[in-house]
């Protein structure tokens, strides 16, 4: 068996770890534990009294069509946003990597969007697609698309996807560009001698070599679409019209803080926690197996 080297520890390492452990404990473990506890309780809106109700919050949740609708919306939204922002960013990065002159200007133009906060992006989108004063609403109207952000769930989703992708492309672009630049120059040149078609060379050499970057970004993008789009949703649609754009995270907020159903909201966050854990596990399992070379 493996013989482990033993060191005598002083208390110092633990002491130095305390701040980090404290932060994780206070802001992660404690709230998570509280959420699990609350999900078994029925609490009055003012937090004066609570009643143990067992799994009732969960049974209500799983029988709710509204919740199911939110799950479907969230998954679809996350997949579409991730796919679009990854593919657009990849295309832009490949093009930017081939530019010889004015590379800097091109890069800055594409990356500054990263600095825009989601809520601000949402408000900007709100202006542009506003039913009364929105520039794009007018353009769509002149093209014969009766665009309505506040009444049509499809139109609302369209704007949310657009704004979320716009914001995320910049991050993906930076990573893809760095990934492209880390591919050995000589490997590209060897491929140029072996393969005449640029397109084929991209799919057989560049794309597989970018796979680790791409997979890392997929994780980041799914997380982004799940959680960070909260600001965009809140400022643009507030989950409407008719709950058509309520993501899981937004529903937790709505039910818990506006609907004051703390127990139900807590049950939802526990479900989401389990979902995210499962997703992370699958992803890392996949990363270990497939993406290494």
């Amino acid at each position, binding site marked *: 068996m493996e013989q482990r080297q033993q060191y005598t520890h002083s208390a110092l390492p633990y002491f130095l770890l305390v701040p980090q452990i404290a932060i994780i404990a206070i802001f992660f473990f404690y709230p998570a534990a509280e959420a699990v506890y609350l999900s078994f309780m029925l609490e009055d809106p003012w937090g004066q009294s609570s009643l143990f109700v067992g799994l009732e919050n969960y049974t209500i949740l799983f029988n709710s069509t509204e919740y199911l609708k939110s799950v479907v919306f969230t998954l679809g939204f996350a997949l579409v946003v991730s796919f679009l922002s990854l593919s657009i960013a990849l295309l832009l990065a490949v093009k930017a990597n081939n530019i010889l002159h004015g590379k800097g200007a091109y890069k800055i133009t594409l990356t500054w969007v990263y600095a825009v906060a989601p809520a601000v992006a949402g408000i900007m989108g709100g202006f542009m697609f506003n039913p009364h004063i929105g520039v794009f609403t007018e353009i769509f109207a002149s093209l014969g698309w009766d665009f309505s952000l506040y009444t049509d769930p499809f139109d609302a989703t369209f704007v949310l996807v657009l704004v979320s992708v716009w914001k995320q492309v910049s991050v993906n672009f930076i990573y893809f560009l760095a990934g492209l630049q880390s591919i050995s120059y000589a490997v590209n040149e060897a491929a140029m001698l072996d393969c*005449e078609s640029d397109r084929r060379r991209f799919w057989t050499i560049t794309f597989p070599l970018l796979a680790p970057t791409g997979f890392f970004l997929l994780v980041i993008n799914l997380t982004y679409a799940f959680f960070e789009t909260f600001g965009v949703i809140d400022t643009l649609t507030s989950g409407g019209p008719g709950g058509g754009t309520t993501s899981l995270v937004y529903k937790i907020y709505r039910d818990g803080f506006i609907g004051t159903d703390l127990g139900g909201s807590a049950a939802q966050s526990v479900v989401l926690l389990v979902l995210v854990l499962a997703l992370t596990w699958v992803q890392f399992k996949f990363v270990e197996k497939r993406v290494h070379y």
Partner: protein
Amino acid sequence: MLALKNLVKTYENGHQAVKGVSVDIKQGEFIVLVGPSGCGKSSILRSIAGLESITGGEIHLNNRRIDNEKPASRDIAMVFQNYALYPHMTVYENLAYGLKNRGIDRDTIESKIEKVAKTLKIADYLERKPAKLSGGQRQRVAMGRAIVRDPQLFLFDEPLSNLDASLRAHMRLEIKKLQRELAVTSVYVTHDQVEAMTLADRIIVLNQGEIEQIGTPAEVYHQPASTFVASFIGSPAMNFHQAEIADGVINFEHQSIFIAEYAHLSAQTIQLGIRPEHAVLEPSKSGLSFSLTVQAVEPLGPNQLVHGLVNDKVFTALTPELHFASKQVLTLHVAKQHLHLFDKNGQRLQALAQEVAQAS
């Protein structure tokens, strides 16, 4: 077979790396481009491969002008310095990639790879990825990837410079054997003169984008065309000392010797070139003798380098293993056929008799 016609390469920053290089390479010939860094040897190689566009001139391969064709359609294979294997593919896939893209069917690919793998002794790790291979193995795979395509021309870009000394000597010999066996025309770039001397049928010595000399290894060593070639080929480098010549009489270090072969030269100041290995302790009949004050001795094993001063200028001689004290004065002798004469511009002054001998 491969013809470069007045090849010019100017980079965007205005640097002219190749200044009009013309050369004709015969079928099956092994050509080595050699020169110090920045001499344009890599630029020439990359221009032939099509990895760099050329500014002027033409490149012809088998009577086909190729300088406007894409790299992959030139029918050229290249071995890179850092091997440039595809890291996400197995050795087999690395070898198959170029063939697959040319639409060759699976069975043909398999039999070709099998043959090449046998020749290069890489059959045992065809299923491995490059990261799991040693430097020498990667080198073989890189060679295999070039050979398996059966190209009209091989290009080698300092392929041995990442290997350790013993492996380098071994691979050098293998490359030479393989090239003779396959008889594929090859252009090999190196800054290592030993590789140049051992591998080449003809050496092209480059200096600042221009050809200094084209010749067989023996020609380049025995009749260097200029002081540049003379000092670049041969290790340690040739010694240069000023001397006077008039009517075939060379005046050097208070000594005058008459060499009939140089009688045609006008009176002038010359650079006298003497290789360290040609300055010997035994007197020769009709040679030059001069004294050397020993400064330092570097033992090499079979022999030793003696550094000292001749007429207050540094001189290096290669002698057998003998003990010399510091400041000891030695008398060295150089046979007249081992004297190299260069004019004040560093161009070789040819001896008449040698020219006659060479022509016959």
